[in-house]
């Protein structure tokens, strides 16, 4: 009975439809345009929120850069890096951007720094492996070396059961007087390329003074 009624009602509505008036037509166009604008605005707002950045500045270390907003920033003086920013939302690995400065001798080359990192990291990172090294030129025209590497991140708390995460990282090493500036980006292997723009943004905005 109810289904019959509904059919009748639909029939009635179909029967009652007719050509739209000028006003109705433009109302429809405006509604569609408004909806599209709202979606675009939403997307823009979302992107601007997601890509919002803040300025990090360390006058003592001579580093200034734009880093994503909403990331946890560690710039404790006791650490061996100038800052380390991590995305608390990222799953499963917390995307990392880091800038560190280490002293080097006057005759040191960027490759020496990479060797130093290669020696240090196996003791800190499980299954650490260097993947590739290449030379790049930074925005300001200075030359740098870029090393890509990988390791596995294991949960060290024995009471938490986590599958090891394969992490891919990239270090860009720039020599500055008697210091080497190391810019680091690390991300879970499968998301590495997708979020590599974070590293590019950092390199674009990084000022070493």
């Amino acid at each position, binding site marked *: 009975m109810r289904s019959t*009624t509904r059919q009748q009602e639909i029939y009635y509505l179909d029967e009652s439809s007719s050509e739209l008036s000028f006003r109705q037509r433009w109302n429809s166009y405006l509604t569609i345009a408004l909806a599209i604008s709202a979606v675009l605005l939403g997307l823009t707002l979302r992107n601007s929120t997601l890509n919002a950045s803040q300025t990090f500045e360390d006058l003592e270390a001579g580093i200034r850069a734009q880093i994503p907003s909403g990331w946890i*920033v560690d710039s404790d003086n006791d650490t061996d890096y100038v800052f*380390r920013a991590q995305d*608390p939302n990222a799953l499963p690995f*917390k995307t990392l951007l880091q800038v560190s400065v280490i002293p080097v001798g006057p005759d040191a080359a960027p490759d020496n720094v990479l060797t130093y990192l290669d020696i240090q990291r196996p003791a800190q990172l499980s299954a650490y492996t260097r993947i590739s090294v290449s030379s790049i030129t930074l925005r300001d025209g200075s030359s740098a070396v870029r090393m890509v590497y990988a390791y596995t991140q294991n949960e*060290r708390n024995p009471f*938490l*059961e986590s599958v090891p995460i394969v992490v891919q990282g990239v270090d860009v090493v720039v020599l500055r007087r008697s210091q080497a500036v190391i810019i680091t980006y690390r991300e879970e292997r499968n998301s590495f390329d997708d979020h590599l723009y974070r590293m590019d943004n950092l390199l674009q905005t990084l000022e070493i003074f």
Partner: protein
Amino acid sequence: MQKKHLFKALPHPVRTPFGTPSPKDLERGRSRKFSKGLFILGILCILIGIGAPLLPLRGGHAQSDPPPVELNEDTIKRATVFVMQTYQEQNQMVISCVGSGTLVSVDGLILTNAHNAVPSDTCRSDQLVISMTVRLDEPPIPTYTAEIVDASQGLNLAVLRINGYLDGRAIDPGTLQLPFVELGDSDAVQLDDTITIVGYPAFGQDPVTVTRGTAQGFTAEARAGNRAWLRTGATIPGTMSGGGAYDRSGKLIGIPTIAPTIAGGELVDCRVIQDSNQDGRADRNDTCVPVGGFISTLRPAALARGLVRASALGIRQGTDLTNTAPLRAEGNPTISTAFFTTSVNAAGQPGTVVGGGAPSGINSLYYFFDYDNMADGMIYELRVTLDGNYEPNYSLPPSTWSGGEHGTWYIGSTDIIWRNGVYEFRLFIDGREYSEGGKSIVLSGAPTNRPLFSDIVFGVLDGNGGLIGTGYVLPEGSAVQARFSFLNMEPGTTWTHAWSRDGQIIYVSNGEAWPAERGVQGTYDISVGALEGGFTAGEYRVSLYINNELSATSSFVIAGGAASDNTANVFSDIRFTTDASSDEPGGTARTEFPAGIESLYAFFNWNLLAPGTTWTRRWTVDGEVMFDITEAWDAGPDGQNYFVSLGSLAALPDATYGLDILLGNVLVKQATVKVGLGQLPVGAFASASGVQLVGRITDAETGQGIPGAMFIVLESEYSIEDFLWEQSQVLGSSLADSEGRFQVPALLPRGTTDEPLLYSVLVRAEGYLPVNGDGIIVIDSTASPIEINVALTKN
């Protein structure tokens, strides 16, 4: 029309003729209101979302009545570790000894038995492997390596520190986030209190086990006092040795302890569990893992507190006792002069000697014996039978010897009624019975009026016949008086007194008849007449006999010159420095040092102290005993600049450090020195006294865990509003595991009821709405861990 029709299909409220609601109507109305309320409540729950799980915490712990702290069995089980001593042979790791242990700090300090960790002839070891219980119903999983921080062979206790992963990677202790238990007050344990014992019952193939029993008595032992051991009736397998015993609030009050039993140089119970020589067979040619018998004794936590606290502060005493292999004297030990007494005074001296019998109803009995040629680390055991049946409550199971080479020792049981019957005491050392130590006593009947001597003290007579400088440490001189009490001494009773020095008789009186004028009860002084050379430095003993039966005996030490009050002036001029070079004080001796010093040396001079005399040095930190070392004096009779020291790998914490020097349990010299502020920093033991935060982060829709979701706890001074996403504002954070479980590595410091500490938390995961919460309140009685479960909604 159709809509109307549909509406008609809805039930109408039934009304009474007078327009007032009928009871049925009322009921339906209430039901509808309830449904509406439920709906609104549901909407509210949705609106406040996943923060709801946090709400109980806000109110729960904020109440003025603190929640009752009860034993958390899961936490205790997780804090119980399996300790394996291992060594490398033919490229494989061989397990030599196993036992249990307990985590006593979040950063990986483990309390266990010394025999579970210190390498020995029985337990060859070059690496300690720690297995953790990850799932409560499964065997432990080898996870870490550990090192010995400090150990006491005599107490059979050791503190280990987790220092690496099995793959060789080192661990920064600050990064560990392990469950742990807190030490309780073992002195507060009363008879019949319920005790929960936790440990591993086998060789690591079984899950951690909980056994319950009651406190059934206390065993006294020389140097450790009346509560040297806590007795329990629980059945505890030997591999649970080193585990934990807990009171009803879950505090660690004892350590189940038994040394592997040795008989004739061979381990009595030793199991082969692997092919250590790699000959394709696991047989008697392979290394076997010793198993102690069943445990009935617990080392009270009070005796472990100093070790644990010193380890937590990173303080070490100068001599490394952890890896010192016991020095075995040549030849077999000798045991002599075994006797019983019913009381022991503060100096460790017996009251009156009980002969072959004692009346019914006594509640304490001590078994004394002299020993020679012993060595620390030997395994000794006292087996007591009552009318031929083994009595575990009065016996001492195999224990590690710590009394040094020679001296007098006692074992006793207090606070329990000794039942009537014939008791046989049999002493075993390294599995061999020493008949000289065998002794029996009959307890029955009413007290008799037999004559007896008791309570011998020593001193020097003043001009008025009074005894001055009384005690058990006297200066060198020509006259020493011994004063004792007597009772029921009928005139004519024959008595004798004998004096000995370092075990050699120096004077024996002729048998004398007790004169009537002395009475039958009172005190009496005796002395040795013209002793050649007088009383020179050494250890002396006076024994009193009645009718040729030992009735009382006591020892004293002669050392040092006489001070103005006739007390012994043995040690003098204690000076503290931060360095020592060529056995000379380095730097300036001071009573206050700035913060940050790495070592503290105490130099002192000594005078007229016989080599071999037993002495004790006791280091205190803010008045709490950290190290208590008793050994034989190893220097000449006189000298300057003997030194002992404390050290730290980093810096000694600010505190007031004290050095007490004792002879024969009598304090003869003490001094203190301030470092930095002169008191331990607030929260010096914070690594072992905070609240752990654990929980699970799930998808609100599916209930599945969200791996990688981040749980952040802010420092108590910051709220969500104040958070600027700076790491310095973060107390700790944890990533959820594959099940969504998390465990914040940092412990939440406790506030007080009057000044609670409030914490804020954030939960973040990509694709989910963020959750923030303020107001997690932590006070001194907040139970640990706090569990927070958060359901995140997809965005």
